[in-house]
């Protein structure tokens, strides 16, 4: 790429005026262009950020609204907690009985360990 790319479009008089300072003018123009691009990029990012935030806010409020109205009401109307609790209670009673039966069994690990302990002691 030509070094004097920014000065190509200048008219003859202006080119005469900056004779000897072409490199400096080129550098200054480059810096200006770079700064301008950076600012416009930041602007674009900013807008996107704000729009994203408002969009996420919209979704958040919508979700809270739906949870507190539709979902909670449905949950209350068709609650299955009591049935689940009763089922778990039945299972719990069975497991307790099972445990007692297992503990009373002569072949279980605890009995074997205790037997071994007494055998060694006496």
């Amino acid at each position, binding site marked *: 790429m030509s070094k004097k790319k920014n000065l190509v479009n200048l008219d003859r008089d202006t080119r005469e005026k900056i004779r000897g300072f072409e490199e400096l003018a080129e550098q200054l123009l480059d810096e200006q262009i770079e700064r301008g691009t950076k600012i416009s990029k930041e602007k674009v990012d*900013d*807008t996107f*950020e*704000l*729009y994203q*935030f*408002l*969009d996420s*806010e*919209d979704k958040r*409020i*919508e979700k*809270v*609204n739906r949870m*507190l*109205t539709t979902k*909670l009401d449905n*949950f*209350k109307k068709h*609650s299955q*907690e*009591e049935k*689940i*609790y009763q089922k*778990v*209670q039945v*299972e*719990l009673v069975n*497991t*307790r009985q*099972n*445990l007692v*039966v*297992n*503990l009373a*069994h002569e*072949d*279980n*690990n*605890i009995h074997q360990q205790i037997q071994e302990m007494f055998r060694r002691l006496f």
Partner: protein
Amino acid sequence: MNDETQNNQKEKNRSRIPNYAEITVESYKVFELTEKFKEQGIGEVPLYIDVSALNEELTKKALQNIAQSLILLNLHPFFPYPLYVITDKIGQHDVLPIIPTVEELPAHFNNKIKRLKQKEQLLLNKVRLKSNRLSNVALYDKIAEIKNQFKNQRKILRACQENEFYEHLIDKLNIPNF
């Protein structure tokens, strides 16, 4: 504070991006807090009230009065927009969200304030409409219902944990179930 000023403040809040704003109060009496909350429009923008200068006892009283004022106005400290209380004297509260310092406020509502473009303004209007709809829900009742559901689910959880513990014991006994 007259109605016109309150309406102006509300109108101002509606056109604002939901960013943090501080509520400054001179005393923490219920009446004054109620007036201040009406003026600031709790629930329209995220707000915080800094009570970190108070000692532990006064903080407890202030929190109690803040909660009472909110109940009187039928406003909830979480929805649609939160009202945080800044204090490091108390870890948590039954009703109010507590944050130890301003710097620790959730970053979600920290946005650059700028002029809105048309599409952003439209989206903001939509958000305002939905948040107003949310304000009309009986929030305290709904939250109480959710807490009640928690209790029932905890009962189930405890029963399941107990059951699991017994099953683990049976496995350790090394005898097949019969």
